[in-house]
């Protein structure tokens, strides 16, 4: 990221945390964060502090990178986040398109 201020839509797409009236929410978990969201924008420094997200910067390149929420377990909620990934040919696939079926999601790699 090149800015410490993001739209709520971009923030949701990147992290799975959505701005709702009750606060920032991921699945069925909500955390009040009145100081981090205003006018459809998310203040990354404030939200990182609120959710235990690491924020690292590369000053010479003007780049920032935000880690996931921390301080508890790897999973904050059992609700699967919106996930869209491409296939080998670049066609996007939404995991949510498999609603109604059981899914065994397996991570593997060539290495």
């Amino acid at each position: 990221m090149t800015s410490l201020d993001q739209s709520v839509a971009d923030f949701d797409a990147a992290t799975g945390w959505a701005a709702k009236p009750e606060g920032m929410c991921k699945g069925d978990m909500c955390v009040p964060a009145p100081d981090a969201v205003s006018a459809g924008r998310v203040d990354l420094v404030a939200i990182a502090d609120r959710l235990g997200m690491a924020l690292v910067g590369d000053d010479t390149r003007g780049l920032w990178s935000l880690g996931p929420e921390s301080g508890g377990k790897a999973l904050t909620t059992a609700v699967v986040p919106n996930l869209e990934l491409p296939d080998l040919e670049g066609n996007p696939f939404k995991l949510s398109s498999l609603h109604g079926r059981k899914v065994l999601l397996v991570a593997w790699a060539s290495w």
Partner: protein
Amino acid sequence: MWQALYEELEPKGVTVVTVALDIDPEKARRWIETAAPTHPSLIDSQHRIDELLGISNVPMAVWIDESGTLVRPAEAAAIKVSALRSIEITDDFGESLKRVLTEVKAMPDTGDAYRAAIVDWAEKGSDSEFALEPHEVIARSRPRPKEHSEAAACFAMGCHLFETEGKDAAIEWWKRAHALYPENWTYKRQAWTLESTPDGEASDLSQEVEAVYGTSWIDSVLELGGGANYAVVPDL
């Protein structure tokens, strides 16, 4: 392997989705084209499912029910016994290979039990003893201290720089990620393979990358307690 399981489980309502954690999708191509999957076969070049689902090694899997809720957290997903386990270690082998095979044999052999659990869940759904309640899924997922969040941020920065400037710009950020979260093997093996596997060749599994990363796969395994600690063993 996953294609065969998919064909067995598809009539029982289970879709297998494989996700390749490969920053260079072309490296995954030969494997995917050989397997010729008819199930969704996706590429996660940024390792996003590490932070989103708690993946930290391969193969690992999560189970998702019909409503889009996890019923098992990320855990080792071997579904058959590795052929490497049955190799008899003899004096003919070099020291390096002996060390690797010794630790591979020390890894817990959970393939048959895990496969049987998947089939049980396919047949019984939420009545399966292996399908967990949401609070159990969360409780059984791995701890995530702040260091792991920072590791994810550093790994992602490295991936971005790999894309925009090339591998050399990524190395320092990936080293930071490795130091912050040494038990995440996807961060390490992804970075190391770019040093140890020549273009166009099959993956170098021993990953002797002392020159750039000051370690190798086997040295790193031994530092973290050996093969017995290598996988997130399913608690079945």
